[in-house]
């Protein structure tokens, strides 16, 4: 298991890549308008399958929402 901070919350996950992390959460990686950052840097959608997660990583998974 890997210790991550996902959207600000610490947790243990089985996933070892960004793509797996999304899948394990029931997030369709094909879904549009999603974006992911790993340790403060954006991970392009094409890199999700290859983007490895290691303990201590911080992941942000975001989407657009209403705003002013």
């Amino acid at each position: 298991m890997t210790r991550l901070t996902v959207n600000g919350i610490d947790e243990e996950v089985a996933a070892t890549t960004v793509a797996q992390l999304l899948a394990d959460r029931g997030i369709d990686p094909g879904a549009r308008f999603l974006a992911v950052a790993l340790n403060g840097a954006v991970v392009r959608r094409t890199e999700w399958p290859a983007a490895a997660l290691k303990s201590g990583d911080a992941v942000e998974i975001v989407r657009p929402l209403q705003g002013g």
Partner: protein
Amino acid sequence: MSDDPFLIAGTPLRSRLFIGTAGYPNQQVMLDSLEASGAELVTMSIRRISLDGYSGSLVDVLSPRCRLLPNTSGCVTARDAILTAELAREALETDWLKLELIGDRETLYPDVEQLVHAAEELVRKGFIVLPYCNDDPVACQKLADVGCAAVMPLGSLIGSGRGIANPAAIELICTRSPVPVVLDAGIGTASDAALAMELGCDAVLVNTAISKAHDPIAMAAAMKAGVEAGRLARLAGRIPQRTFAEPSSPQLGLVGT
């Protein structure tokens, strides 16, 4: 008005009214208000997905209708604002950005010092940056100098509906700005939007005044008309203000005198 083109960063926009998408009673009212406003440029925020899965997006309905302008609302550090901007670009596939960098959570006043630095870096990264800033002409000049595509000075506090607190400052900014000036924050009603345009602003951004109005759709139409009215008046060239009266009707040939 086809004879009055308006461009930001070389892109023609068909409306000088920008609107926000937050705080509407529901999504349908928001979409109807967007329709009534005639706005092309529409703001969105970037937020973490709820961890229990992701359930479709507002973007699907908005993107066919308008050009999206993601913001960095709520960010208080340049680092967070820049990361949010890059996530927005990735998620929405647009370089356009409303840059917000808040210096005080209670007044939501911008932190102009950090704002200039963040704007400079984002311009370097290829963003089209529209910063929410204060009504300081020197600050606006610095933002233009670092390559912002427009400046968006506040009329009054975000959501306050107090209109344009310092019209002389806004007018001063408009007369001197090398880039378009978009009045952001504080608009409460249509006459505020008209005044902003009369002072020389190139456009107006409105959210709360529409979304929280008793009838958002009607207020969206009011804002559209207000922006057009103000722009037309600006182009028409208003009469000067006089201290004394000036009769309109002829002064000669009065009956019985």
